[in-house]
C-alpha cells in the first residue's frame, strides 16, 4: 500500500492560539481515514492546513511522496487533492452545473463532460436540477453538490469536513453510504466528523484528536470498542 498523505509533527497557530500541537498521521491508498474529536479539537484546522488554506508554523506534509508544505491551495488541486469544506460552501449564486464546472477548473475542458456524467450518475438529483441556482437547493442536495463538485477534480485524495453537519438522520446515512461507495470505486478518503459513530463504522483507520493533539489511533472497529473513546464520543 502506498502512502497518499503523510503529515508529520504539524503545528498551526491562529494568531497567538496554538491550535495544532504536533499532529502526525498518514493515509494509505484506498483507505477511509477519519479524524474524530470534540468541537475545537483542531480537526478542521488540520484539514485546512493540509489543503493549503492555512500555513503551518512547523512540520511537514507529504502528498504522494512529494513535499507540499506551504504550497497554496489552488496549486494542490491540480496535484490531485480536493477538500470538500465545512459548511459545504457551494457557490450559491451559480447554477448547479456551474458549481460542478468550477470543481473541474484546473482540468482540460475536453475532460469535463465525462466527469459531469460520472457525477450525475452518482447524484441523480443534481442532474435533475442542473439549471437551478445552487442557493435554492435543500441542505442535503447542497451537500451532494459540494461532494460532486469535489469529485469533479478527479482527486486522488478527497477530504471531507463534516459532511453530515446539519442534516436529518436519514440524509446522514445516505451521505455516509455515498462516501463508502466512492471509496469502493477507488477514491482515498480523509474524513473529519463529529458523528463519531458513523465515521468509525465506515473507516479503515481513525485518529482521535483532543485540543490539538492525537490521543488515540487505530482501526475503526478497535476504536468503536475502546472504552475511553466510547465514553467521550459515542455516548457511553
Amino acid at each position, binding site marked *: 500500500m502506498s502512502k497518499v498523505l503523510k503529515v508529520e509533527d504539524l503545528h498551526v497557530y491562529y494568531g497567538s492560539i496554538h491550535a495544532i500541537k504536533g499532529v502526525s498521521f498518514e493515509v494509505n491508498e484506498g483507505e477511509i481515514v477519519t479524524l474524530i474529536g470534540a468541537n475545537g479539537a483542531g480537526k478542521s484546522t488540520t484539514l485546512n492546513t493540509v489543503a493549503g488554506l492555512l500555513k503551518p508554523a512547523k512540520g511537514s506534509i507529504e502528498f504522494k511522496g512529494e513535499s507540499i508544505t506551504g504550497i497554496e491551495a*489552488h496549486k494542490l488541486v*491540480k496535484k490531485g487533492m480536493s477538500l470538500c*469544506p465545512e459548511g459545504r460552501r457551494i*457557490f450559491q449564486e451559480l447554477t448547479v452545473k*456551474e458549481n460542478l*464546472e468550477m470543481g473541474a*477548473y*484546473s482540468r482540460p475542458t475536453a475532460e469535463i463532460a465525462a466527469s459531469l456524467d460520472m457525477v450525475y450518475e452518482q447524484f441523480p438529483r443534481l442532474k435533475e436540477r442542473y439549471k437551478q441556482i445552487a*442557493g435554492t437547493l435543500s*441542505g442535503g442536495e447542497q451537500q451532494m453538490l459540494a461532494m460532486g463538485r469535489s469529485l469533479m477534480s478527479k482527486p486522488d485524495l478527497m477530504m471531507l469536513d463534516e459532511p453530515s453537519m446539519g442534516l436529518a438522520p436519514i440524509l446522514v446515512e445516505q451521505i455516509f453510504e455515498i462516501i463508502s461507495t466512492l471509496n469502493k470505486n477507488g477514491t482515498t478518503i480523509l474524513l473529519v466528523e463529529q458523528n463519531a459513530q458513523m465515521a468509525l463504522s465506515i473507516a479503515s483507520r481513525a485518529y482521535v484528536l483532543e485540543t490539538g493533539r492525537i490521543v488515540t489511533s487505530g482501526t475503526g472497529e478497535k476504536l468503536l470498542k475502546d472504552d475511553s473513546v466510547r465514553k467521550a464520543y459515542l455516548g457511553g
Partner: protein
Amino acid sequence: MVSYLINGISLGAVYAIIALGYTMVYGIAKMLNFAHGDVIMVGGYMAYCSTSYMGFGPLTSVLFSMLVCTILGIVVEKLAYKPLRGASSLAVLITAIGVSYFLQNAALLIWSSNPKAFPNLFDLPQVQVGDSVVTSVALVTIASCIVIMLALTFFTEKTKMGKAMRAVSEDRGAAALMGINVNSTISVTFAIGSGLAAVAGVLLCSAYPTLMPTTGAMPGIKAFTAAVFGGIGSIPGAMLGGILLGVIEIFAKAYVSTQLSDAIVFAVLIVVLIVKPTGLLGRKLTEKV
C-alpha cells in the same frame, strides 16, 4: 425634452461604464477602489497625448489609452493593494485614497494644472432626433455603453474566467479549493475595470472637452454613487444606477437649478438607500443550513 433625455442617458452611460469598474472590483476584491476615478483622467490624458503629439487616429488612440490604463490598473493592484490582502478594509480604503492623490499629483507634475483642450475624436455631424438635435458624441457614448454591457454580461455568464470571477466574489476560500488562482482573478478584474475607465475617460472628455488632473474626481464619485444606487457588486445594477443618475442630473440642471443638481442627485441616493439599503438591484443572500 427629448434632447435632455438623450443627453441624460449619454452622461449616465459614462457614469455606468465607470460604475462597472467600481462594482466589479468591489464584488471580487471586496474593496472600494477610490483611485478608479483618476484612472479616467489618465485615460483622457493618454488619448490627448497620443492624438496631439503622436499622431494616432481616433480608434488607435482609444486602444492605446485602454492599454496604458489596463497596465496601470494591474500595477497599482500589485504594488498598492495586493500586499494588503487580509488587512482591515479601512487600511485598504485609505491606501486607495492615497493612490488617488498620487495619480492626481503625478498628472499635475507631468501635464501641469492648465486645462488642456481635448481634441474632437468623433468628428461626426449632429443628429436630428424628432424635433431636437443631439450630438453624435452622445450617441456614440450610448452605443459604447450598450456594447460594453453586452460583452461583460457574456464574459461573466459564459466564459470560464467569468464564472471563476463570480465564484471568487462569493467565496474566496472555496474558489481556491476549486483550483482557481484568486490573485490572478483579482488582477484580471482590475485590468478590465481600468480598461473600461479609459473608455469612459475618452467619452467624458469628448463630451466635456477640458482635461485637468482633477477631471476624474467628480465623475468618479458620481459613478461610485451610481454603483451604490444600483446595488454595489451587481453589473446590471451599475448600469441602471449610472443611467438613472445621469438622467436625474441633466433634468435637475434643466428644470431646477444648475447649482443644485448635484445636491438633488445625492438626495435621491439617500432616499433610495433609506428605502432599500442594498440599492435598486442589490440583494442579500440568506444562508441555508
